[in-house]
């Protein structure tokens, strides 16, 4: 009984939906969507970041980049790739952690055994942190 009743109500809703779609022109809902969730830290990745994303988040936290190049601002390089790059929705609250002096990116990336492009990681983290 429950299932028949549910399907009948869904069928009615479907008919009303199709009628509404015919009568009312569709408008883009992208901007309202992004505005609505901006406060929840749900800014999207760019296509370039998405393309490289498997490499950007490939850190295994071996620590070799820290030996090679140290820190970005107050943040140790392995932490940048293993922790900040996890893209927490509240990354914006930690923007100050990654704002400051740059390390030798070339040395850092050369030391990485799994090929994490650390400068790109820093760029992505900073972009998302500042919103």
């Amino acid at each position, binding site marked *: 009984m*429950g*299932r028949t*009743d*549910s*399907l009948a*109500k*869904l069928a009615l*809703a*479907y008919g009303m*939906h*199709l009628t509404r779609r015919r009568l009312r022109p*569709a408008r*883009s*809902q*992208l901007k*309202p*969507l*992004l505005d*609505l*969730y901006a406060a*929840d*830290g*749900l*800014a*999207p*990745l*760019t*296509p370039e970041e*998405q*393309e490289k*994303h*498997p490499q950007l*988040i*490939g*850190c*295994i*936290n*071996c*620590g070799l980049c820290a030996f090679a190049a140290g820190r970005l601002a*107050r*943040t140790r390089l*392995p*932490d940048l790739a*293993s*922790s*900040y*790059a*996890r*893209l*927490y*929705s*509240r*990354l914006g*609250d*930690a*923007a*100050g*952690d990654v704002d400051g002096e740059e390390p030798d990116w070339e040395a850092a990336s050369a030391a990485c*055994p*799994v090929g994490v492009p650390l400068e790109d990681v820093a760029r992505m983290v900073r972009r998302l942190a500042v919103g």
Partner: protein
Amino acid sequence: MSQPSAHDVVIIGGGVTGAGIARDLSLRGLSVLLLEKGDWGAGTSGSSSWMIHGGPRYLEFDWDTTRLSTTDAGHIVTIARNIVYRVLFIIPVLPHDKNNIERMETAMEVYDRFQPLKKSHPHKRLTPQEALEIEPGLTPDMVGAVTMEEWGVDPHRLVFANVQDAVANGARALNHTKVVELLRDAGAVIGVRYRTSDGAYSEARAKVVVNAAGPWVPEVGHMAGVDVQLRPAKGIHIVYPHRISRFAISAESIDGRDLLMVSHAGFTLLGTTDDDFYGDLDSVEVLRDEVDYLLQGFERVFPAIRKFRPVRTTTGVRPTLFKWRRYEDELSRRYQIFDHASDGVDGFVTIAGGKLSMYRLMAEETSDAVCRKLGHQSPCVTATQPLPGSESDMEPAEDLARRCGISALAAVKLQSRHGSRAAEVLDGAAAGRVVCRCEPLTEAELSYSARREQVRTLADAFRRVSLAGGPCAGAACVMRAAEIVGRELGWSASQRFDAVRDFVQSSWLGRAPVLTHAGWAQEELVQGATRGLFV
């Protein structure tokens, strides 16, 4: 054996339902003993999809379940406001999906009617280009997409918050404590015999014993001579140690089931399967076939998924109510409360079925049944009384970080676990070094979890404070963590080594089905870091 303790109620099972009942009854002024054979939330609750959701798929079967579920979800997000977060789903629709874009949007329009009950926003509809703009990893083959909002929560913290509040209201709660026998008197259940983590046996007398053991409900029922039938269903998730997308994404499996990839606090869960389970509930293994089934379904909407490195899997068994013939996916997620007085066994109540999103309501109704048996009249307050950590607003993470000498990200993570009580965790102690850098987790918080949050093993620390939950899977931190926890619990050097070995070995079981390329590199690192433990 020590003298039996006496309680109004003994609850067997420290998942979210048992913990919720313990909280509810202790807030009503009853004396409660809660017993869990493993760790809090280590069974079905912890292996869930980490969501407080309203169940839009139940719209096809039963709108009442959706209404109940969204209403209770609304209560949960209110009482746990500092540990829940919004999860925005993108549901891409492909040309040959079981629902076309109009049907899918219709379902979302109907679901929108329920969304305000759980303080969620209505859906939006996106063109393929718009969907690709916000998630470039989606397949360009889609014909459109709709969005849907749900809530995320760390189930381990949710369970523990309930335990914590029960204890604050007078309950006793023991983890790693197994009930080995139900005490009987003329047919009635009058208490339990249990074995604690140190191997000692004790007894507790109670006016009512509640069986809230999830999939183990039939096993506990047998101790009382009653038959409670379930249809247990196994589900697995693949865990990625990062957010693969800023959004959650749904997909369709080869057999038309709904799959979800959900972005949580710094990691991603991809799941889930739903298969009848007949094996040993204490030893549920993930099969490579199940992993392949999920990846095959998901790569249709997110083609690059196989390029990402999973770090482990999770698995659990749902305590679904028994029903013959239906497919697993069509089984109801409703719950049922059994007063076994009707079976001639007085003083024994079972709660079976249900889901995380309705745990508070299940606990309320079970507690009502218990109060009726006891003739105790006191209203339920769990719909409005905040859980620990959600009593007040949180201070800005940067202020907390500055005050406690930790990074802002460490402060954010501390708050995500302890809410407005984050500062208390570090109170009176220097935050100390960061012990788990991936998370990040400070020494002070780990010590606190051993001292105040019933952490007894490193796996407990993983559940309570996310120790080794990140990309390195513990390679860099488990040895140090064993020293810190061991210092609090008085472990000898060999006990510390044993703790690390147990943790690494049990983690391996969850990791093995998903190891590929970089995963093996990481595995070498873990094995190297812990070399010497396995000779």
